[in-house]
C-alpha cells in the first residue's frame, strides 16, 4: 500500500493488517510503520478505520489477518499487556483511570513496589518524583484524579505510560475534550516527548493540529491507507481531498423541495444545553434539516435537549403554536407529537430482552393499547402486525425476541416505534448506523414518505453522503456551536468537512 515503509528502525509496523467485524471490513490490508522520535498522525473520517488500527497496535483488538512486527520480527498481541511489554501504550479518548484514587496510585497501578505483598510507599514516591522531574510534569501525587481537569487527567495517563517506559504512546483524539489553552499545553508536551525520542501516534479530527504537530501523516479511507507522507508535503486541502476521494452515488431517490411557504413545525431559538450553546434553526412541514459535524460536536446532546431528555440551559423552542424553554420530559414531547430515534439503539433505543411487539408499542401504551391502564392484547397485536408490514421488519412475528433481529431490522423497529403515533416532527440521530445497504435504502424511503405527508425531520448523521442526500438544508456543528449553514445546492462534502474541521 505505502511505498516508503522503512524496513528497520521502526518501533512497530503493521503488515497487511485487516480486521473484520462480522461481514464488515473495518480495516483492509493496512501497512504502516511507526518510527522512534516521530509524531505520526492518523487522519480520516469517522469510520475510516483509524481507531481500529490504533487499537490493533495497542493490543486491544486482534487483527483478522496480517500481522504486527517489532524490529523486523513478527509479534502477536493478544491483550494490551503484550503491547505494553513491547513498549506500546494507548491513551484512549475515554480515559481509563481510577477516579477516586490519587494520582500516584493511578500512575503506578500494577507497578507497585511490595515486599511480600505489603506496599512500600516510600520508593514509589521517589520514583514518582523522578518521573515528574524527568518529563517536566507538574502534578501533585496525592491529588484525587476526579478533582483534576480533563487535561491533567490526560497527563496522569501519559505519566502512567511513561512509568512503564513506553516507547510509543498512541493517543486517540487527545484534544477533543480539552479547552484551547489546555490543547496548547498538550501540544508542547507532545513535542517534548518526541524530542526525547518517544514516538507518538496521534489520531485526530483537527487538521490544523495534525499539520502543526506531526512529522508524518497517514490518511485513511474506508479501512484502507490512502497514503503515508511527510506532514510538510500536505495541506489541509490535500488532506481533505485524500479523506474524501470519491463522488456521491445516487442512492437517494429524487424528492420535491419543501415549499418555502409551508408552516414551520419546529423552531429552535438560541438554545443552549450540555455541550452546545446558542443554536438556532427551524424546519418546515415537508422539510428535512441535516445536522453534520464530528462526533462529540454536541449534535446528539442538541437533539436530546429538544426532546426533553436533557435540560436546556437557555433559549427557547417553538413547536406548533407553543413557545417554551424546552420540554420537561420525553413523555411531554411525545404527547405533543415529537419523536426521537436515539443515537445508540442498544443503549437508548431498545429493550433487548423484550419482544419486538413490546418494543414497538412501548411509547404508545396509554394512548393506543390500553384502556384504564389495562392492556388490550389484540389491539397491540394489530398495531404491531401493521408496523411489521409497513416497515418491512423481518422477524418471526411480534412475539420474536428483540435480540434475534439483525441490526437493520432492529433499527426499523426503533423507527416503527417513533412513527407509530404519527408524530409531527421526527428527530433522528444516526438513523442508519450499523445498517446494511438494503435496509438503509428502505429506511430512506420511509423517511421521504414521512415528509411527503407533511412531517418534518431533523437528522444528525456522521455520514456526509447521508446528510447531503437526505437534507434540504444542512447545518454544521463544531465544538457545540453552529459553524456553517448550507442550502441543498451549496452543501458539498468539501464545504461541510471544512466547516466541521474549522478550516473554512
Amino acid at each position: 500500500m505505502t511505498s516508503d515503509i522503512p524496513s528497520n528502525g521502526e518501533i512497530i509496523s503493521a503488515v497487511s493488517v485487516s480486521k473484520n467485524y462480522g461481514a464488515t471490513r473495518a480495516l483492509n490490508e493496512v501497512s504502516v510503520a511507526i518510527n522512534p522520535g516521530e509524531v505520526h498522525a492518523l487522519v480520516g473520517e469517522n469510520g475510516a478505520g483509524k481507531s481500529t488500527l490504533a487499537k490493533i497496535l495497542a493490543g486491544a483488538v486482534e487483527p483478522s489477518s496480517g500481522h504486527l512486527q517489532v524490529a523486523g520480527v513478527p509479534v502477536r498481541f493478544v491483550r494490551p499487556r503484550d503491547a505494553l511489554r513491547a513498549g506500546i501504550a494507548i491513551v484512549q479518548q475515554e480515559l481509563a483511570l481510577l477516579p477516586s484514587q490519587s494520582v500516584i496510585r493511578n500512575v503506578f497501578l500494577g507497578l507497585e513496589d511490595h515486599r511480600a505483598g505489603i506496599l512500600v510507599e516510600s520508593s514509589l514516591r521517589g520514583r514518582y518524583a523522578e518521573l515528574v522531574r524527568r518529563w517536566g510534569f507538574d502534578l501533585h501525587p496525592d491529588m484525587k484524579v476526579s478533582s483534576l481537569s480533563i487535561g491533567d487527567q490526560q497527563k496522569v495517563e501519559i505519566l502512567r505510560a511513561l512509568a512503564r517506559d513506553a516507547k510509543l504512546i498512541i493517543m486517540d483524539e487527545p484534544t477533543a475534550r480539552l479547552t484551547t489553552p489546555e490543547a496548547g499545553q498538550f501540544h508542547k508536551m507532545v513535542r517534548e516527548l518526541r524530542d526525547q525520542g518517544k514516538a507518538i501516534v496521534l489520531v485526530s479530527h483537527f487538521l490544523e493540529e495534525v499539520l502543526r504537530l506531526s512529522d508524518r501523516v497517514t490518511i485513511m479511507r474506508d479501512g484502507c491507507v490512502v497514503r503515508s507522507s511527510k506532514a510538510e508535503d500536505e495541506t489541509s486541502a490535500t488532506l481533505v481531498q485524500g479523506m474524501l476521494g470519491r463522488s456521491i452515488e445516487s442512492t437517494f431517490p429524487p424528492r420535491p423541495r419543501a415549499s418555502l411557504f409551508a408552516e414551520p413545525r419546529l423552531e429552535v431559538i438560541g438554545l443552549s444545553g450540555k455541550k452546545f450553546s446558542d443554536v438556532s434553526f427551524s424546519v418546515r412541514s415537508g422539510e428535512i434539516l441535516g445536522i453534520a459535524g464530528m462526533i462529540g460536536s454536541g449534535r446528539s446532546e442538541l437533539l436530546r435537549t429538544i426532546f426533553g431528555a436533557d435540560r436546556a440551559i437557555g433559549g427557547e423552542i417553538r413547536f406548533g403554536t407553543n413557545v417554551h424553554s424546552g420540554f420537561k420530559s420525553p413523555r411531554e414531547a411525545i404527547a405533543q407529537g415529537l419523536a426521537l430515534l436515539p443515537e445508540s439503539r442498544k443503549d437508548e433505543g431498545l429493550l433487548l430482552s423484550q419482544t419486538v411487539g413490546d418494543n414497538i408499542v412501548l411509547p404508545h401504551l396509554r394512548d393506543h393499547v390500553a384502556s384504564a391502564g389495562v392492556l388490550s392484547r389484540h389491539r397491540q397485536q394489530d398495531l404491531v402486525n401493521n408496523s411489521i408490514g409497513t416497515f418491512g421488519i423481518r422477524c418471526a412475528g411480534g412475539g420474536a425476541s428483540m435480540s434475534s433481529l439483525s441490526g437493520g431490522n432492529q433499527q426499523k423497529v426503533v423507527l416503527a416505534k417513533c412513527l407509530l403515533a404519527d408524530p409531527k416532527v421526527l428527530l433522528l440521530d444516526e438513523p442508519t448506523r450499523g445498517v446494511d445497504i438494503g435496509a438503509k435504502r428502505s429506511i430512506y424511503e420511509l423517511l421521504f414518505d414521512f415528509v411527503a405527508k407533511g412531517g418534518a425531520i431533523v437528522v444528525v448523521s456522521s455520514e456526509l453522503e447521508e446528510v447531503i442526500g437526505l437534507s434540504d438544508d444542512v447545518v454544521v456543528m463544531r465544538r457545540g456551536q453552529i459553524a456553517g449553514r448550507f442550502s441543498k445546492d451549496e452543501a458539498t462534502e468539501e464545504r461541510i468537512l471544512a466547516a466541521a474541521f474549522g478550516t473554512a
Partner: protein
Amino acid sequence: MSLSRPSQSSSLAKDSSLVPGAANGRRQRNIERMQDFSILAFLVGLFIVLALTSDVFLTSRNLENVLAQSVAVGLIACSGGLVIMCGGFDLAAGAIYVLSAIVAAKVSNTFGAELGIVSGILAGVALGGVNALICTVGKINAFVGTLGTSIFFGGAATAISGGGFTYIEDPAFSVLSADIFGINVSIIIFAAFAAVCAFLLNRTVFGRYLLAVGDNEEAAKLSGVSVNWTRAWVYMLSGFSAGLAGVVVASRSLAVGSSSGLANSLVFSALAAILVGGVSMRGGDGAIWRILAGVFILAGVSNGFNLNGIDPLYQQMMTGVLILIAVAIDVWAKR
C-alpha cells in the same frame, strides 16, 4: 464521516456484537423454557418425594399449614420480585412488616380492629413511599437506601412498642386468619395478592413500564416512561404487601413482636424465593408464577425436613445450594 460503502462505518464495528442473529434468539428462548421447566420439574419432584417419604405430608391439615406459613414470605416475595424486575431492591420490607404490625396493634387498641388493620396497611404504603422518595428523587442506590430505612424502621418499631410484645385487645382483629369455606382467610389474601401482581405485570401499562425501566432505564425514559414514578409505585406496592403481611400474621396470635431478627430473616427468605424463582437480578425479567414456585419449593423443603426429622441445619445448606443453582442457570443462560 464515512462517505463510501456505508457498510464500513466504524459504528458497525460496535454494533456487530449486538446482532446475534436468529440462532442466538432461539437459543435464548430454549434456555428460558429450560428455566421454566426445571423449576416446575423440581417443584413436582419435591412434592412426589415428600408424599412418598412422609404419611403426614399429603394431609390437608399439613398442606394448609405449609401454605399459611408461606403467606408472609409469599406476599413480600411477589412484590419484592416486582421491585427487582424494575431494577430496584427492597431490603426494608421486613422492617416495614414489623413496624406496620405494631402500628396496626396500637391503633386497634385505641380505635378498634377495622381501623387498626387499615392503618397498618396504610403505614406499609407510606413507609414504602419513603423508600420510593429516597431511591428516586434522592437518587440513592436502592441497596444502600433501603438498608438505611430498614435499620431506621426497625429502630422505630422498638421505640414505639417499647421493645416487647404488643398485644391486640380487639378479638375482631383475628378475622384475617379465620376460615371461610374451610380455607384460611390469610391464604385467600395471599392468592388474591399474587393474582393481582401477575395481572399488573402481564396485563397493565404499569407492568410493561416496570419491565422497561428494569431492562433499560434510558430507553424507557426516551420512550416517554416516567422512570421515577414507575419505581415509586413499585416501592409503595412493596410497602403495601409488607404491611398486609404484618397485619395478617398479627391476626393469628394477636401479639406483635418487634424483633429485627424476624424482619431480616423474612427479607432473606423472600429474596431466596425470588432467586430460586429465577428472577434476574439485572432487572427486566421475571414472572410471578415462578416466584410462587420458589416460595413453595423452599416451604416444601422446610416442611419435608421437619416431617422426616432431619436436622434443620441441612435445610439451610440446601436452601443455599438451590439459590446458587437457580442463579447459575440465569447467569449462564444470558451469556
